[in-house]
């Protein structure tokens, strides 16, 4: 679906790497994960704010709370952009500032700029099949930390520091205004370095380097979209391919087996009065997990499309032709 040109980037914020606190935000609307393309020479940029928190978490498979953390919250402000190199090839970026806090206990919260994420998104196939339109997408991503933030301090770390290479496939099918999108992502994560020079997982490691297990992400989204509105329900799952469980009453560790399944809703509105301006919002809730917090999150953002095409027409109008 490439015609909804006003449709903004709706930040993934590279939160894939903040699993323990805020994995649920991955369930948010996310342009690198949706079946939407920017048209050639259009640049959509904007900012997003999100808040998520959890009181209960899974220590391995054991669900518990912890009065020494109380409620752990993560606030995030992200800036992101999406540029159409062509109608079928987009490049995207996002960079978030993250702040964590625990309402109880004595641990000091963390804040800082986290990881820069870059994606190339390509739509090789779009064809009318049956009553609707089928389109396929491939998204390659790379993310890396841009500051030297503390990683080995979960659940209050702002990220996991690994450099990630991701490859995603998306299938979208739209009948009139109704659509469904399914996606699978493989995330390869680099080793990370921590401040300690030894650590115990299921055995003792005499090194400061930590092998980060790779991960898979699955998502399914369905809803209604037009040139002015999008409303959708999102089901997403993150599964770590390896890693180990937090042992009883231990602290979490970056290479834990962090899994989670979240449900959410998201919506976008293209402001009629200002061409190219849109607002987004949504929320999500973690329904199942392992070695992660059971977070609930909300978010909202404002985006604007700059059209670098020489022609006078707005992107939206041009889209009507298709």
């Amino acid at each position, binding site marked *: 679906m490439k015609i909804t040109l006003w449709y903004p980037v709706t930040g993934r914020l590279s939160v894939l790497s903040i699993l323990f606190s805020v994995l649920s935000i991955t369930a948010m609307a996310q342009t690198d994960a949706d079946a939407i393309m920017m048209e050639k020479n259009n640049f959509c940029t904007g900012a997003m704010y999100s808040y998520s928190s959890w009181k209960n978490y899974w220590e391995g498979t054991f669900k518990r709370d912890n*009065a*020494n953390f109380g409620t752990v919250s993560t606030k995030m402000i992200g800036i992101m952009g999406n540029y159409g190199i062509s109608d*079928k090839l987009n490049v995207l970026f996002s960079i978030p500032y993250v702040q964590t806090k625990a309402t*109880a*206990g*004595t*641990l*000091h*919260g963390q804040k800082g700029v986290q990881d820069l994420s870059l994606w*190339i998104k*390509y739509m*090789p*196939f779009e064809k009318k099949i049956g009553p609707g339109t089928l389109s396929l997408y*491939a998204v*390659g991503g790379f993310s890396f930390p841009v500051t*030297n933030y*503390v990683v*080995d*301090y979960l659940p209050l770390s702002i990220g996991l520091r690994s450099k990630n*290479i991701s*490859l995603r496939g998306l299938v979208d099918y739209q009948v009139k205004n109704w659509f469904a999108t399914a996606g699978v992502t*493989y995330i*390869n994560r*680099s*080793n990370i370095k*921590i*401040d*300690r*020079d*030894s*650590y*115990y997982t299921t*055995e*003792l*490691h*005499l*090194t400061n*380097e*930590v*092998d*980060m297990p*790779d991960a898979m992400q699955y998502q399914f989204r369905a809803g209604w979209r037009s040139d002015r509105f999008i409303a959708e329900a999102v089901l997403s799952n993150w599964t770590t391919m390896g890693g180990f469980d937090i*042992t*009883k*009453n*231990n*602290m979490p560790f970056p290479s834990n087996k962090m899994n989670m399944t979240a449900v959410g809703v998201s919506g976008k509105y293209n402001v009629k009065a200002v061409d190219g301006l849109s607002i987004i919002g949504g929320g999500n809730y973690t329904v199942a997990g392992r070695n992660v917090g059971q977070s609930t999150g909300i978010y909202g953002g404002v985006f604007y499309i700059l059209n670098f095409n020489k022609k006078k027409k707005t992107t939206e109008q041009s889209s009507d032709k298709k």
Partner: protein
Amino acid sequence: MKKQILFSLIMVVGVSLVMLHSCTKSVAGRTDDISALQPSKTDANAGTWKPILLNAPDEFAVAAPIATNSPDYIAQVNEIKAWQKNISEKEKEMVKYWSAGAVLRWNEILRELVAKHNLPPYQNADGTYPFPSANNPLAYPLFPFANPPYAARAYAYVSAAQYDALVAAYHYKKLYNRAAPYNVDASINVMVNKSDLPSYPSEDAVVEGAAVEMLKLLFPGDQDFIQQKATEHKNARIISGANVRSDIDAGEALGKAVAQKFVTRARGDRAGAAIGNQAGWTQLENDAIAKGETPWYSLEVPKRPPMLPLFGKVKAFLFDSLTMVTQIRPGPPPLVKSDKMKQETDEALENIKNDTREHYRIVHYWADGVGTATPPGHWDAIAAEDFIKKNYSEVRWARNMALLNMSLMDAAIVCWDAKYYYFNPRPTQLNPAIKTLTGIPNFPAYISGHSTFSGAAASILSYIIPENADKYNAMAKEASLSRMYAGIHYRADCEVGLVTGGKVGAYAVARGNSDGAGN
């Protein structure tokens, strides 16, 4: 259309290749690949060194070995050859791993056990806490909770038992003077460094036997893991051609017999009662109030009983309790209501507000908290990695580790004595705005455990490797400072802790000067 599909295929393949490339990311440990131990001197006279508990090196008898021309011995040599003929890759790795040094590897295994067990028990539904039971070690909470005092004591007993067992072994090596199998039969393929040291009884098996026997007491729930390591160790020595089976059997038996003496001491050293009881915990609180002081309170929710309040009563290795109370116990901390204490609490607040990245690095490098080998284990790691470079004989390895770990255990005793004698609150108890850069340990502040451990370790290690003295002192200072940066200690805790630890280390230095080993 075709072009587009081709392009997307190229992209997919390209990204996949990059991913495969970066998939090779297994992480090696610092001591995984070190070479076989080649002692710079054999220390063949170590049988004359002063033991710690043994009355004499021949307190436990070791029978004379069979002659190297006997059919039985030849059969044992053939066992080596048969094993080597069908050696597997896994066995080669085993030989390489153990050839790095017996004392080193058992110290690493012990650190691993400590890290696994260094977890405070999860609370009961009613907000009380269960305690681990040595009689039922596999039931939750697992026994032991290897907290810093428990760990310090474990490292000390294992090291000390290994040292005494090796002194005895070297005595018999010299007495019986049976050559190593490769010096008897030159056709044996030797996979370790050759030595002129007599091989009966095997020093490796002595170290293994002493460790296994001590660990039955200290980590009773991990016997499968420990026995597996022991079997691998013994087999590795035979496979490598370093020992025949009778070297191993005699060594293991000697190691276990000597360790029994340490087990008996450990059973009576009062550590078993160090947890105390509710009446005792309340008494500590009331005593502090009676003195006009603010007592320590647990900052955990629910409040957890203080960690091992009677550990200060444990029998030390390097001095008696009267010496500890009169010569080593530090003077009191600033009164809780004094200006000095207010000033130090304000300093703790300033420290956590100034939470620079470098402060986090220092705090987390030295934190050695839950799920780690503890500060004593960290100092063992620092020492071990330096000892590797010194090419010590096994007996010198054991002697130096014993000096270090007796210092650390006795530092724990002195530190815990002070903590519960003064029962001083943590900075965050006096000012809840102090949000710490690492977890607050569940015991009183004065004096800092990290500082006491580090002061003791730096003192004895500077004696053992004088050229590293500046490094050890700088590390100890940083470890001590890390607790202030973290906001979990006052300046007085750290400064007095470092000095007090140094005093403990001096007793180990005195022992080192008189044990006949020289440096």
